[in-house]
């Protein structure tokens, strides 16, 4: 297991958001985490990436303890993420946004910057190179100099993925990447998610409400309901799992087509 969660419990003022969650993602796989609204999916992402502090349990990434590490340390370990509601640096260019990802893989400080040392200049070139590579990979390189906030919503989502890729992760967590995308964009997203794994060897864990997309890309699906994992299996198994069907009943806004 690349990522492994054991008995993770997260409470907010007595409200149990994650309840003894056992969960894992294997290296080089495409996995999904689904569940009704408010099930605790985003909270699980936040717990993995250090934004939330679960009270109990263990989280390990590649044998390293992740729990109680600061978010930037988790990113350094090789876990990247996107946010449910796009959180780009809106007033900065697409290029600068993607360059942010390279921060944790580089080291020049104030001295290097002021003196423009050869090492610092080489590093800046490297940062630009990786940023261009990531922008090309997701297909936003032609907008490199545009302000992030001026981009169409679908492209903003792609920039966020490029920025996460620039951290050079081994696992990428995507929180509802298809939300707000049209059919064409969704098809392109499916293609992109596959390429992230196939061409870059990065494992993908996806939170998604679009079941069509989930069933198409996921090799493994976990279902979360009221903070508990209620099912774990491949697309076929999940589709026919009675507990899953029950969990989704009465959720008329869900696009659960089983």
């Amino acid at each position, binding site marked *: 297991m690349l990522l492994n969660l054991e008995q993770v419990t997260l409470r907010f003022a007595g409200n149990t958001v994650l309840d003894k969650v056992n969960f894992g993602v294997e290296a080089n796989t495409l996995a999904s985490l689904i569940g009704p609204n408010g099930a605790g999916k985003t909270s699980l992402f936040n717990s993995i990436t250090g934004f939330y502090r679960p009270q109990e349990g263990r989280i390990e990434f590649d044998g390293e303890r992740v729990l109680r590490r*600061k978010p*930037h340390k988790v990113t350094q370990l090789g876990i990247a993420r996107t946010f449910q509601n796009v959180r780009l640096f809106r007033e*900065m260019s697409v290029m600068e946004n993607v360059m942010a*990802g390279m*921060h944790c893989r580089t080291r020049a400080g104030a001295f290097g*910057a002021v003196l423009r040392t050869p090492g610092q200049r080489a590093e*800046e070139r490297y940062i630009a190179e990786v940023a261009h590579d990531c922008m090309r990979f997701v297909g936003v390189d032609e907008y490199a100099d545009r302000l992030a906030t001026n981009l169409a919503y679908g492209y903003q989502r792609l920039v966020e993925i490029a*920025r996460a890729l620039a951290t050079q992760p081994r696992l990428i967590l995507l929180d509802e990447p298809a939300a707000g995308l049209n059919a064409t964009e969704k098809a392109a997203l499916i293609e992109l998610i596959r390429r992230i794994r196939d061409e870059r060897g990065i494992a993908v864990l996806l939170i998604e409400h679009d079941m069509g997309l989930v069933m198409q890309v996921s090799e493994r699906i976990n279902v979360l309901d009221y903070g508990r994992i209620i099912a774990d299996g491949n697309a076929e198994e999940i589709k026919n799992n009675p507990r899953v069907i029950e969990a989704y009943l009465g959720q008329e806004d869900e696009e659960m087509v089983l």
Partner: protein
Amino acid sequence: MSTATGRTAGLVDRLYATFDSPRRQMLLMVAIVVVMAVLPLVMGRYATTIMTNALLYVVLALGLNIVVGYAGLLDLGYAAFFAVGAYSIGILTVQFDWNFWLAIPPALVAACLAGVIIGGPTLRLRSDYLAIVTLGFGEIVRFSARNLEITGRASGLSNIPEPSFFGYVINSYVDFYYVFLLLAVMAVIASHRLYHSRLGRAWLYVRHDEDAAEAMGINRVRVKLAAYVTGSVFGAIGGIFFSVNLGAISPESFSFEQSVLILMAVILGGMGKIPGVILGAFIIILGPELLRELGELRLLLFAVVMLLIMLLRPSGIWPERRH
């Protein structure tokens, strides 16, 4: 009224737009430096001294701009760093007979320490508390200077020796004008390079969205601390040369009003943008001088003009504008 101001603002914006390209900005800067370099040849002693003071303020304002403009932090006690630089030199050269140039490295180290001391505990505070803590820090430094034996108490330190540079003694007012011109140019270059660097971008990321920055692997505490330390080094360099220029320093040179003036230069000019901050520093120093004829009224008039500028151009005279 509103259409008229709108039109003026539009005109001003267009003027700035012509200097938006880095090449033209560079040319403008070179031209300004050349003009500044010949100024002492045509100016009298008084005017040259005032200009020297303005150049000192350029260095200080650019330093504070790193904290306030780039990193978006608040600092109401910036004069403290200025004081640390000045007093380090004063103490080492007067009390311990050190050579001026040898005293510079310890002065810079002291400034870095001061930056860490002020930055460390304040980074976890909300901005309103930050205002109080930084203000308090400024007052503590001044209070210490006024009460310690080694800093010469209220009368301060005098007879700070003039530095010599390869046998040439830097002592005339013209010499110091050129020293501060050089410092200001170096401060501009350093600010520019920092802004376009990994650390400079990190300041912007953290200022724009702390969570997203952290998710990108940026250590927010460390980045903010770097802003305080870098800003404090700028301040200390200003203080170091301020002390040898005057030859004497006293606690009152590092008052709260001093911090406010520097902050005003940054805000007035438009936080974050180098040309704006330079302009702000010049306005803060030259403004009251140009209005000197008016006697008592000049400070009032200056305050009114400042207020008008704030109202008409709330984001500064030459604000940061990107793309």
